[in-house]
């Protein structure tokens, strides 16, 4: 297995990064880079696209073709890129607000088309960039600047949503379990078709402080205590499972990939032209 220093993939001259001390996004990003490294992808052939948010600032630090788009639209931009250059490894990195709220429609449609884009959702359960409003992933009862009395909505199960919409691969990991997260992301990239990884991250600045989690360590501990693998979950009672979430590979299926399917349209259309002659 290839093992290049992580700096090989970074635009070091663009450091320091904007993330706060203890932010989970850097850990998730390094898991992405380890995954790319483990697959030995050609730097010139990787294209990373993001939306808007703290998570979405990641591509700027990466030495690939990188595109920082508008809030929520990364997958739509990425779809245009992938369609016209299907050989590129297209990866979308964005936050939970970006992908599940404003970009939710693009997320389910990219999954439905099963276009070969790997999407990593940096899920910190909050809008970090805009200083702590609730997101579609904020758990019920938690505090946010726009939920000063406690949040009354239920969050999505994003992996279930995306798999139901038609993705080829879904899985979940955490910043705490960085090495397994990286292996999960590598599988997602290797999968032909739409692949989605929810990476549970932490925002100590806006989620932690407001929700009695003093610092990043407490939040990472929380991830460690509450994440269980499918196997471990099978040994737990429903009561014990109540406040847990499942990590690992959560769904894989083989389905025709969109850009390959488009080739059949080109074939049919050009054949018709030949017949015309």
């Amino acid at each position, binding site marked *: 297995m290839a093992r290049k220093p992580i700096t090989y993939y970074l635009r070091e001259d663009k450091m320091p990064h904007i993330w706060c001390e203890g932010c989970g996004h850097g850990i998730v990003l390094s898991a992405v880079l380890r995954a790319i490294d483990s697959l030995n992808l050609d730097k010139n052939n990787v294209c990373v696209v993001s939306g808007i948010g703290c998570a979405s600032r990641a591509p700027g630090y990466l030495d690939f073709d990188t595109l920082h788009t508008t809030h929520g639209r990364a997958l739509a931009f990425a779809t245009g*890129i992938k369609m016209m250059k299907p050989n590129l490894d297209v990866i979308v990195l964005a936050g939970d607000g970006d992908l599940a709220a404003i970009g939710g429609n693009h997320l389910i449609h990219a999954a439905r088309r099963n276009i070969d884009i790997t999407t990593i959702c940096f899920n910190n359960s909050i809008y970090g960039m805009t200083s702590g409003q609730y997101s579609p992933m904020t758990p019920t009862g938690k505090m946010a600047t726009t939920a000063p009395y406690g949040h009354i909505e239920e969050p999505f199960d994003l992996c279930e949503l995306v798999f139901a919409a038609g993705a080829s691969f879904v899985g979940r990991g955490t910043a705490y379990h960085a090495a397994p997260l990286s292996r999960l992301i590598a599988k997602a990239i290797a999968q032909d078709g739409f692949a989605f990884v929810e990476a549970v991250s932490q925002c100590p600045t806006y989620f932690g402080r407001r929700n009695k989690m003093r610092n990043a360590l407490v939040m990472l501990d929380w991830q460690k205590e509450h994440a269980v693998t499918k196997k471990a979950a099978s040994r737990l009672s429903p009561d014990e499972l109540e406040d847990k979430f499942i990590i690992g590979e959560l769904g894989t299926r083989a389905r025709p990939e969109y850009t390959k399917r488009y080739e059949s349209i080109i074939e049919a259309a050009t054949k018709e032209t030949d017949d015309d002659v």
Partner: protein
Amino acid sequence: MGNKTSIRLMQGNEACAEGAVAAGMRFFAGYPITPSTEIAEELAFILPKVGGKFIQMEDEIASISAIIGASLTGAKSMTATSGPGFSLKQESIGFAAIAEVPCVIVNVMRVGPSTGVPTAPSQADVMQARWGTHGDHPVVVLCPTSVAETYTLIVEAFNISERWRIPVIFLMDEVIGHMREKVAIPDPGELNIVNRARPRCKPEDYLPFDADAGDGVVPPMADFGTGYRYHLTGLTHDRTGFPTTKRPEVDALIRRLDSKMDKAKQEVTFVDEVLTEDADIAVFAYGITARAGARAVRDARASGVSAGLLKVKTLWPFPEEHVERIASKVRAIVVPEMNMGQLVREVERASKGKTKVISLTRVDAEPISPQQILSALKEV
């Protein structure tokens, strides 16, 4: 294959689609909306025949986003829509302007605001076309007056977009979009086709937003996937493409982008002057209204009024020199528009008080008739 020009009866929307393909457009993303839908339908059929790709996205925001993405790979890209969809696209049109990604956005105007009269013509989006997205930004707006002109002008739209790395808005109206007329399809070899300048330097020397590496205004643009490995963002950025909030860099970027409007002006201004030489009264008109204007001018002349027509195909940058020149020699300029009077304000501004400017409006979902313009010409 032959080099004879072929004559065809075409619908405006069809001419738009085919002209775009002739310009080299190979990626289209759209979302159905009357009265622009035929453009998407036509392209779903013909693009795969030429190795291009069509996709119907989940909405208009996705469509404009997808064409910007596709353009970054080097493909000439287009989307088409109408009123409500045009409003949805605005945010990303601004992205194309600041990140300097060539693309063409067709808006076949219908009556608004909101759902308005979906099937009826209007010209009420001319201000939105220029100023619809937030922030100062360059955008060229073209507006054809016939089906044949739609075919050739959409080619210019791509040329301008590629040359200046800007979004170009192609404003049709429902009449032009749905009308059928004779079109002499130019031989492909006859068309002037412009492609964006690509960097000639080595990837390690590439500064993606260094205009000095180009002509001082437009930096050369690398295709994604060719080893240049660069960054694009909708944030204000420095020459490396990386975000900056440094005041002088922000200032320089916004000013450079804006300067494209001035620098491009001569090259992108298409105005036909019809019988203006000896005119003492003029009509300023665009889109389908220019056709009524032409007829009104002819009829006015037949009844002894020396009228002339400014048939304006480039709405933005606004052709103020043409207007000022005419203003200094006529008694009045009549400005018929299918809106409450939008470009008439620009005509007033450009006339600098040298002549009387008369606004003719029509907002009952019907085109302006030659008679309406003619009576104005006779009354003044």
